[in-house]
C-alpha cells in the first residue's frame, strides 16, 4: 500500500500489560520524512504504541512486548540493543510540556551536554539555533537564564520541541502534543511540524481529526489495540474502506 522507504517498521507487535492484551498484532511501516498520525478513541492504545518506539514502555512493571520494531533496520527489542542511543534518535513531545527543572538555556543545552559538548561557544550557538527554529528566540532571548517554568504552556511546549531537536534526532514523536494548549499555540506547533517534516520523520498521536488532516501525510486508525486502517490522509478520511473507520470519522465512535 505504501511503498516509501520505512523509517520505523513494526512487525507483529503484541503488548501485554499484566493480563491485558493492549496492542494486538500491530504491523506498520512508518515512512521516512513524512508526518504519520495515529488516530483513534481514547484508550485504544495510541500512547502505548508510541512508547514502544522509544522503549519508554519498558519502564513499567508487568509489561510484555513481543514482535519487532525496526528503526533504520535495527531491532529495538534485540538482545544487544543499546537503549540510550535509540532514545537519542527520537525527540518526544508529551501531552503536557515538562521542562527540566532548570533555566531556558540549560533545558536546550542539557541534551548536547550529556552527549559530550562542553564548548561554551558551541553551546550558545546550539541554543540560539534551536530557539530560532522553534520561533522562541525573540520571545526569550532576554531571559535565557530564568527558569523554564516561567514560560507560558505554549512556549514551554515549543521549548520542549527545541530541547528535543538539540540532540539531533531523526524522528519526532508527539503524543497529543497540543491537547493542553490554546488555539494559537496549537497552530504554532502545527506550523512547526509542517516545517520539520523536510528533515525529520514525525509520528503524531492525536484525537483531533482536523489536526490529523491539517498536518499529516498518512493516518493510521487504531481501535481497541488494532490497526484498522492505514493510508494517505485524504484517502483515509474521505474514502475509508473499513466500516469502523467510517463510523469513527462520522463521530459514531469516540
Amino acid at each position, binding site marked *: 500500500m505504501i511503498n516509501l522507504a520505512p523509517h520505523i517498521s513494526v512487525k507483529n507487535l503484541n503488548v501485554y500489560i499484566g493480563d491485558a492484551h493492549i496492542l494486538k498484532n500491530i504491523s506498520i511501516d512508518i515512512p521516512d520524512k513524512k508526518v504519520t498520525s495515529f488516530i483513534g478513541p481514547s484508550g485504544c492504545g495510541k500512547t502505548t504504541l508510541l512508547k514502544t518506539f522509544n522503549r519508554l514502555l519498558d519502564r513499567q512493571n508487568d509489561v510484555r512486548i513481543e514482535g519487532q520494531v525496526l528503526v533504520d533496520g535495527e531491532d529495538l527489542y534485540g538482545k544487544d540493543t543499546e537503549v540510550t542511543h535509540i532514545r537519542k534518535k527520537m525527540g518526544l513531545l508529551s501531552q503536557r510540556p515538562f521542562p*527540566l*527543572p532548570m533555566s531556558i538555556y540549560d533545558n536546550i543545552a542539557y541534551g548536547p551536554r550529556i552527549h559530550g559538548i562542553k564548548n561554551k561557544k558551541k553551546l550558545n550557538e546550539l541554543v540560539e539555533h534551536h530557539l530560532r527554529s522553534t520561533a522562541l528566540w525573540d520571545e526569550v532571548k532576554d531571559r535565557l537564564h530564568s527558569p523554564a*517554568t516561567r514560560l507560558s504552556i505554549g512556549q514551554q511546549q515549543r521549548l520542549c520541541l527545541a530541547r528535543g531537536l538539540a540532540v539531533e534526532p531523526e524522528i519526532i514523536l508527539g503524543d497529543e502534543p497540543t491537547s493542553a494548549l490554546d488555539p494559537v499555540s496549537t497552530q504554532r506547533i502545527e506550523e512547526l511540524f509542517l516545517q520539520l517534516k523536510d528533515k525529520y520523520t514525525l509520528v503524531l498521536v492525536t484525537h483531533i481529526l482536523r489536526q490529523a488532516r491539517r498536518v499529516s501525510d498518512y493516518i493510521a486508525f487504531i481501535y481497541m489495540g488494532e490497526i484498522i486502517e492505514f493510508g494517505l490522509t485524504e484517502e483515509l478520511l474521505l474514502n475509508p474502506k473499513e466500516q469502523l473507520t467510517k463510523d469513527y470519522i462520522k463521530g459514531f465512535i469516540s
Partner: protein
Amino acid sequence: MNKRKIEETFFKGLMHAATIVIVGSLFLILWTVVSKGFHAFNWDMVSKVPEGGFYIGKGGGILNAIIGSVYITVGSALLGLVISIPVVLYLNVYSKKGSRFASATRLAFDVLFGIPSIVYGAFGFTIMVFFGLKTSLLAGIITVTLLIIPILVRAMDEVVRVIPFELSDAAYSLGATRWETAKVLLRQSVPGIITALLLSFGRAIGDAACVLFTAGYTDNIPTSLHQPTATLPLAIFFQLSSPIPEVQERAYAAALILTVIVLIISIAAKYFSKKFSKNKI
C-alpha cells in the same frame, strides 16, 4: 438556620479551636523554656565545659554537650544522606513503575519509621557489645544514623515519587542514562531533600534514647571518633534529675539552647529550600 449553615459554622469553629490549641501549646512550651531557661542562662553555659562541681551548682557550662550534639547530628545527617539518597533513587529510578520489590522496601521503611528510638539505642548497644566497643562518638553517630534513615528515605521518597513520570520520560528521551535522569529528579527534589534533612536533624538532635548507651557522656569535648560524647538531651536529663534547684534551672537553659539551635536550623532550611525551588516544575 438551615442544616448546611449549622454544619458550616460548626466545622469552622472546630478548625479555629484546633488551630488555637496547637499554636497555644507551642507557645506554652516555648514560654516555659524561655522563662525558666532565660533566668539561668549565662554566657558560660555556651562557652565553657563543666567545671569541678558543676553538677552541684558550681561554675562552667555545657559546651561539651552542644558540640557533641552538633557532631552527632551533622555526622549522622551526612551519613544518613549518603545511604538514603541511593535508596530513594533505587525506588524511583532503577525499579520499574509498580515494582513489587519497591513496594516491599517502602513497607519495610514504614515499619522502621515506627520503631521507638530506645530500640535503636538497645540495638546499637548490642552491636557495640558484640564488637567489644566502648561508648563513643562513632557509635552514637551510627545509631542515630539508623534512627534517621527511615525518616530521610520516607520524606525524600514522598517528594521524588510525586514527580510526574513524564519528567523522567523527557530526560530519557534526550538520551540520558539512568544516573543522568536520577540527577534531574534530584534537582527537582532539592527543596524536599532539605525538608527531609530538617526533619531528621530535629529528630537526631533531640533524641536521648539513642545516644544514652552508645555515645555515653563526658565533660570533655571529644577530639576523636572513639571518645565518648555528651549530648544536649542527656545534659538536660541529668541536670533535671538533680535535687539542687540551680542545676535544675540550668536544665531549662540547656533546653532553651537546644530550642534555639533547632529554630536556627529550621529558618536556614526554609531559606535554602526557597532558594532552590525557583527552577522546580
